[in-house]
């Protein structure tokens, strides 16, 4: 038996949870995830399994938006979970959210895989690349529309000029680099960088 009673209750993952409830559910889960990380740091494998049951499906989806390939996304989640296990003691509750910490571990791993050139492997022709690119970018823009309407991030991204919003979403959701964003938007690199910088600054200002 695990000593941490809360963890023996498995959190049923609500696939079809209504939009307006989603963030609240996620906040409640974050406290639960914080306890699970503390238990991982003490060597409780069930706690890691608990995080897996509640988050793995979404984490694979997040990694797939970055890496585009399902197999690579699963690899990122696999390696990421091993990292969560070995680094759980570094999480400090009461600072950033446990959820943010867990997602950052997987995101960083996916980004590292991407920068190591794994995504390039899937490019077979320019045409295919363009097609996948367009689909990818549509999917990225849709992530903004899927944000809870009325939430600060939704409103503040909405207040940005369209291209600036696009650059920020391409970076965060799709893992695009400065250079890739400049290329896709046909902008000089310096211009793209300064748009992103101003976009981020306006976003912080708005969300303050």
């Amino acid at each position, binding site marked *: *038996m*695990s*000593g941490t009673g809360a963890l023996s209750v498995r959190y049923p993952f609500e*696939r079809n949870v209504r939009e307006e409830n989603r*963030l609240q559910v*996620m906040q409640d889960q974050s406290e639960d995830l914080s306890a699970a990380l503390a238990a991982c*740091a*003490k*060597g*409780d*494998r*069930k706690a890691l399994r608990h995080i*897996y049951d509640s988050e*793995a*499906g*979404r984490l*694979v989806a*997040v990694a*797939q*938006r970055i890496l585009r390939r*399902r197999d690579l996304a*699963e690899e990122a*989640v*696999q*390696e990421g*979970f*091993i990292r969560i*296990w*070995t680094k759980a*003691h570094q999480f400090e509750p009461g*600072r*950033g*959210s446990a959820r*943010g*910490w867990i*997602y*950052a571990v997987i*995101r*960083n791993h996916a980004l*590292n895989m991407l*920068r*190591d*050139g794994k995504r390039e492997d899937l490019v077979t022709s320019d045409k295919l690349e363009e097609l996948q690119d367009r689909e990818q970018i549509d999917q990225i823009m849709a*992530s*903004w529309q899927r*944000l809870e309407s009325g*939430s600060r*991030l939704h409103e503040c991204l909405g207040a940005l000029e369209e291209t600036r919003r696009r650059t920020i*979403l391409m*970076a*965060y959701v799709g*893992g695009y*680099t*400065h250079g890739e964003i400049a290329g896709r938007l046909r902008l000089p690199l310096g211009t793209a960088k300064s748009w992103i910088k*101003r976009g*981020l*600054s306006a*976003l*912080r200002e708005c*969300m303050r």
Partner: protein
Amino acid sequence: MTGTNPEHDIIHLADEYVLGLMEPMEAAAFEVRLERDAELRAAVEASRDRFLPLDATAEPLDVPEELWQRIDAGISAARPTPEIATAPSPAASNDNIKSGWRWTAMASLAATVLLAVTLGWSLLTRPDPVVIAVLLDAKGEAQAIVEDFGNEQATVKLLADFTVPEGKTLQVWTLPSQDMGPVSLGLLENSRSAALKGPALPKPQGEQLYEITLETAGGSPTGRPTGPILVKGFAKAPR
């Protein structure tokens, strides 16, 4: 714009890091800074939580059970973690936390002792390097030492065996400044310690980042690090 306001700069760097917009070497340097700088950590945590709702928009996918099995197997192979006690007592859990800290402290201590030994040794035997960097792996273990003499000469001593796949090579890099970006100091042929002749660079500074990445044989085709970072560390000037 408030580009000269240091607080503003920190917050912007945090955003760039969280969005994955830094070059891998910049990101590596940033992560080392992050470990020591609580203000920077707070900025990163705030930035993460600002953007997290975007991750929540991803529709969860069905994951195969074997993904968990691979994770479970990976954990067993990873650094030994304390076994779960059938009824963990508060004392036992405290011990675990302490041992985590102790492990980190030991690793830092080992790196420091190694640095001290190297310093003593190199001061006695040769012209002084301008800076010395102990390069650590992801577990915080010292794997290599770079001595940069600041005259286009640097020596790299490997302290561990590096497994390098066929068609790959170890490449040594430094980051003289954010503006210059990462610069290659040279390749380690046959994965051995070597004296390298690099390009003319500004005088190396304390806190300058050095790292070794795995690149395709002949060195990175782009002139910038493209492969995984194997080890990295910040330089110190001998006193």
